């Protein structure tokens, strides 16, 4: 039990002891604490910067996604600027004594102008000359419409402008609905008139000569493109030789037959002439 008494005595005496530290001890502790707090602040700033960049990235991606969706929706409304432009153009074209009669008549114009490109699309297979003819048809149709508009009675410009704005608003709100009204009897009448105008244009008046001329032009363009390389500004010698050979020797069956017949006829004629001699 002696060691335990010794240990208890030692414990009691040592527990009572206090040793005063030096004055510099607290300064060392304070300086180390300042260094630690500086590190913590830097870490906080770093984490805040990381969080801010992460949030900014989220906002940017959301913005890009919404921008992409809005551009897609704009594609759906591509037709409306055309109709609005048409309305604005017609307002500009119509002089004060030649305004529209009512909203329906204006819608007829929209349908007419929209129908014209649709009718022209049917004839695109005929070639470029036919397209030119289509443009002429459109212009004649527009001229006819203008003539018809001239015959309409005069209306107050303010009222007409109101109707145009109402139509514009309707187009903006629901652009497809106005264009997709097929059941209007007036529209059917307009449609019939358009078809009549188109029927009046005799598309068969396009001659073969015109077609041949157009084809020749196209061939020349193709050959020139084959011969001359616009990127390197050089002429392909082999292609040029082939082109010349084609000109020299057409090698068409008709020409060969014609040449053969011609040669035979000349031989026969010479033989008859020599026999008489």
């Amino acid at each position: 039990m002696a060691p335990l008494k010794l240990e208890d005595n030692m414990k009691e005496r040592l527990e009572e002891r206090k040793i005063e530290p030096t004055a510099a001890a607290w300064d060392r502790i304070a300086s180390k604490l300042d260094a630690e707090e500086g590190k913590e602040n830097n870490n906080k700033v770093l984490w805040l910067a990381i969080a801010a960049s992460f949030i900014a990235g989220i906002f940017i991606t959301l913005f890009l996604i919404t921008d992409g969706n809005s551009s897609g929706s704009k594609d759906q409304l591509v037709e409306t600027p055309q109709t609005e432009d048409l309305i604005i153009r017609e307002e500009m074209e119509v002089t004060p004594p030649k305004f529209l009669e009512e909203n329906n008549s204006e819608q007829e114009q929209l349908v007419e102008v929209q129908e014209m490109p649709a009718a022209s699309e049917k004839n695109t297979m005929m070639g470029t000359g036919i397209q030119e003819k289509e443009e002429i048809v459109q212009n004649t149709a527009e001229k006819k419409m203008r003539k018809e508009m001239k015959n309409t009675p005069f209306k107050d410009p303010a009222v007409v402008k109101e109707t145009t704005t109402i139509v514009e608003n309707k187009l903006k709100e629901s652009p497809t609905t106005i264009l997709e009204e097929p059941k209007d009897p007036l529209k059917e009448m307009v449609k019939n008139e358009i078809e009549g105008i188109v029927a009046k244009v005799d598309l068969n008046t396009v001659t073969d000569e015109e077609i041949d001329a157009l084809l020749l032009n196209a061939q020349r363009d193709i050959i020139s493109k084959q011969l001359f390389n616009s990127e390197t500004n050089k002429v392909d010698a082999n292609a040029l030789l082939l082109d010349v050979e084609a000109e020299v020797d057409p090698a068409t069956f008709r020409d060969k037959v014609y040449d053969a017949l011609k040669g035979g006829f000349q031989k026969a004629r010479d033989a008859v002439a020599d026999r008489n001699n």
Partner: protein
Amino acid sequence: MKVIHFYNNEQQLIKKAIRSNRDAQRRLYEMHSPKMLSVCRYYIKDVHQAEEAMCNGFLKVFTHLKSFKNEGSFEGWIRRIMVRESISYLRTLKQLHFSEDGHFESKETVNNVKSAMEVEHLQKLIDALPEGYRVVFVMYAIEGYKHQEIAKTLGISESTSKTQLFKARKLLQSKLNTENNLSYGTT
């Protein structure tokens, strides 16, 4: 006595110190530093090195003050930090060895019989022990740790802890006997 006021005052200082209030931290340091330096001095012979270990300990106290959850005494919480910090300081100096063969290092002799049990003499007796014996002895006899806790803290087995303690006691006893024989003139 204004114990309640003092307790409230320490709690308030702790709250302020958690918010990095330098004045509150200094007040806490001044309240507990003398005792804590004495604790570090149990393990480290040199008082300057003990002070260095104490400073490291207080740095950990103030940086981890949030983890003190008022579950025990604040002084006991600081004391545990000081003990661990003193042991790690000895490890950095490579002075902590748990050798089986121990020898008494002190060559001092007792000059005054009355001062045989004085604190400094006791401290010198403890300082004379080998590092391994000293740490185990102080942790068990002075600090009141159990062998399981000593083994876990020092990274040794419980049997090694018990062996170290036994040998430390043996050495101390033999030294005290020698001193007593010398003082009473017996051999």
